[in-house]
């Protein structure tokens, strides 16, 4: 990083903190802090809805998948996000926003009972802490690997081994400062800034990249055909790079996982709950879906270009023998074994590629000083707002659903506002601890993420039945969730992906089935969990006493009057937006078939 890059990064930090300071005076009640006073315009909520999910791990990960699997990665957007975003906006938001619940767990208490809320609130709170810790770890590791700060540290005479700690500390302090001051509105505003920064940093990258490989047709000529088609080969798991057949993809990713995330995760739903009206809340996910639909061109395309570029000749270090073989694929280097310094080999004895470096290497490859600063700032911004998203969701669920419900009910609003700020501080402190834990014990983190996947997979069945079937009961929901999680664990324990060894990758209960890829195994774990939860909830509900209908008004579809449409221009109405988004997505699927 040179002076100009630091200037750009510094300018961004000043603005982030400035927004927090400027918003501080408008935070007077707990609703201001946790729900941004329910006063945010739809387009701001919509961009925040999308950006809260667009953490650095997403940007890096999507580029990495683009390099590994090709344009089929866009299924994570076009199948794995857009339909669910449309569904939550059109069908579910009336209940989230209309019930005046302040969080997703609180909706569960209104609709079902206390134990269902408690289960969801506690697992969600723990999950947010760990995911912000894991992403903090990932970005610090990336900064270390790319040697971004190395030059500056050397000039200042600082020890290079502090770079990891420095990266964690600086991001934690900045996120803490602006969420502590301005609460959710501050987080949302920064997510919108981050959205524009990502576009500003990545659009020229895709443009330069495409230009240098001769456009999309040039890229197609340089890559295997399976890389530039998203649906051809999806008929069978062995004929496409993802190793999943269309049914597993559509049901596992497109239905269970994507609806489970976009329709029930408070991290994103909170952005819509902050909207200033019912119509704004309903439009929030739909407005977010518009750019989401096009984001594969910003985050996945650079990964494809990275593998299509010529591999640079190996750099010869002093004392090492020169090699003439290319050291990677495209501009993606081999993954180096930490102990030997030689490329790490996969099970077939072939060197593994470090796909996570696809996007960072593209930035370094095309961007001169100046633009490089902007690109890295965009990456850092996406990381920080992803973290702030977790932190604001955590402090709300902690304060409203755990502290106010089980620890200290009946205190003043000012007390809960104070608790929210305190929760922000210890939430970030715990995330830092989680980041260092991830650094020391990689396996524990893998295991935790696995457990979270088990807990999350059945959730959408509970919400679907809760919102659209008035007979569903609290006992049904609770036992459905538990058995869904258990089903996920059992399925995982009985299956493996091809080539994996029993353990964290599955098969720890015995081996019944082997999937062609890990992705297929994950999708099917989710399908089993969802189906189990769905049927157990129905069964137990029918065996238990029906809930009183009078208490379900505003919470269940059949007992709630249709929301009145505000007089909006035809193109701004939720249904028109939904049709535009779905038609656009369909078109993209056809173009990249």
């Amino acid at each position: 990083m040179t002076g100009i890059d630091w200037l750009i990064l510094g300018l961004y930090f000043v603005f982030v903190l400035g927004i927090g300071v400027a918003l501080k005076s408008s935070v007077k009640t707990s609703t201001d802090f946790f729900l941004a006073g329910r006063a945010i315009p739809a387009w701001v909520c919509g961009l925040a809805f999308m950006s809260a999910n667009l953490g650095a791990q997403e940007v890096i990960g999507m580029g990495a998948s683009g390099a590994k699997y090709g344009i089929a990665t866009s299924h994570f957007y076009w199948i794995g996000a857009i339909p669910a975003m449309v569904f939550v906006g059109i069908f579910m938001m009336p209940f989230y926003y209309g019930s005046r619940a302040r969080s997703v767990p609180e909706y569960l208490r209104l609709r079902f009972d206390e134990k269902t809320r408690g289960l969801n609130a506690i697992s969600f709170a723990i999950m947010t802490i760990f995911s912000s810790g894991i992403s903090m770890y990932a970005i610090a590791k990336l900064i270390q690997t790319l040697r971004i700060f190395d030059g500056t540290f050397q000039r200042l005479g600082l020890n290079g081994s502090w770079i990891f700690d420095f990266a964690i500390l600086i991001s934690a302090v900045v996120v803490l400062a602006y969420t502590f001051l301005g609460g959710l509105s501050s987080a949302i505003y920064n997510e919108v800034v981050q959205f524009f920064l990502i576009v500003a940093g990545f659009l020229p990258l895709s443009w330069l990249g495409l230009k240098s490989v001769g456009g999309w047709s040039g890229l197609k000529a340089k890559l295997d055909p399976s890389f530039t088609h998203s649906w051809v080969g999806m008929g069978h798991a062995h004929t496409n790079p993802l190793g999943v057949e269309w049914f597993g993809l559509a049901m596992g990713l497109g239905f269970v996982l994507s609806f489970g995330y976009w329709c029930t995760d408070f991290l994103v739903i909170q952005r819509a709950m902050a909207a200033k009206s019912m119509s704004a809340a309903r439009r929030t996910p739909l407005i977010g879906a518009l750019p989401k639909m096009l984001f594969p061109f910003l985050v996945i395309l650079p990964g494809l270009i990275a593998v299509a570029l010529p591999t640079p000749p190996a750099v010869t270090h002093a004392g090492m023998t020169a090699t003439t073989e290319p050291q990677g694929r495209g501009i993606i280097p081999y993954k180096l074994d930490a102990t030997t310094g030689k490329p790490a080999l996969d099970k077939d004895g072939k060197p593994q590629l470090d796909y996570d470096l696809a996007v960072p290497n593209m930035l370094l490859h095309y961007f001169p000083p100046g633009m490089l600063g902007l690109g890295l700032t965009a990456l850092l911004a996406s990381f920080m707002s992803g973290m702030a998203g977790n932190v604001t969701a955590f402090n709300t669920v902690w304060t409203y659903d755990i502290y106010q419900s089980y620890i200290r009910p009946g205190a003043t609003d000012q007390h809960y506002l104070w608790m929210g700020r305190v929760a922000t501080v210890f939430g970030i402190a715990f995330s830092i601890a989680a980041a260092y834990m991830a650094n020391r014990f990689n396996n524990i983190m893998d295991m935790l993420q696995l457990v979270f996947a088990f807990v999350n997979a059945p959730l959408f069945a509970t919400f679907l039945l809760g919102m659209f079937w008035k007979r569903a009961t609290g006992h049904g929901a609770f036992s459905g969730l538990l058995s869904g999680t258990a089903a996920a664990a059992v399925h995982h324990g009985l299956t493996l992906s091809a080539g994996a060894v029993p353990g964290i990758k599955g098969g720890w209960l015995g081996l019944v089935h082997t999937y062609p890829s890990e992705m297929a195994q994950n999708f099917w774990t989710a399908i089993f969990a969802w189906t189990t939860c769905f049927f157990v909830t129905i069964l137990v509900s029918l065996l238990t006493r029906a809930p009183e209908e009078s208490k379900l008004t505003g919470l269940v579809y059949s007992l709630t009057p249709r929301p009145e449409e505000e007089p909006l221009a035809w193109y701004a109405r939720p249904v028109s937006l939904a049709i535009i988004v779905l038609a656009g997505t369909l078109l993209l699927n056809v173009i990249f078939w």
Partner: protein
Amino acid sequence: MGIDIRLPIGILFSLLGLILAAYGFFGDASRYRQSLDVNINLVWGIVLFAFGFFMLLLGRRGMRVAPQKSGSQSSHSSGHNR
């Protein structure tokens, strides 16, 4: 809430655009070999400045409109509220 988000975005991107464009304009042209001989700092700086300026205009208009409408439901298309 408090401020119109388009104002800070406008200021940030105008400044970023100015910095990049100035750096591209006065800097050494040979450093643009890696960006395919496109002076990406200058080109993209101008684009960002134009975007920032546009957001500033919208934000200023929004701030002027907002006080007159405060209390009432402003319910027109997404780009114009607040």
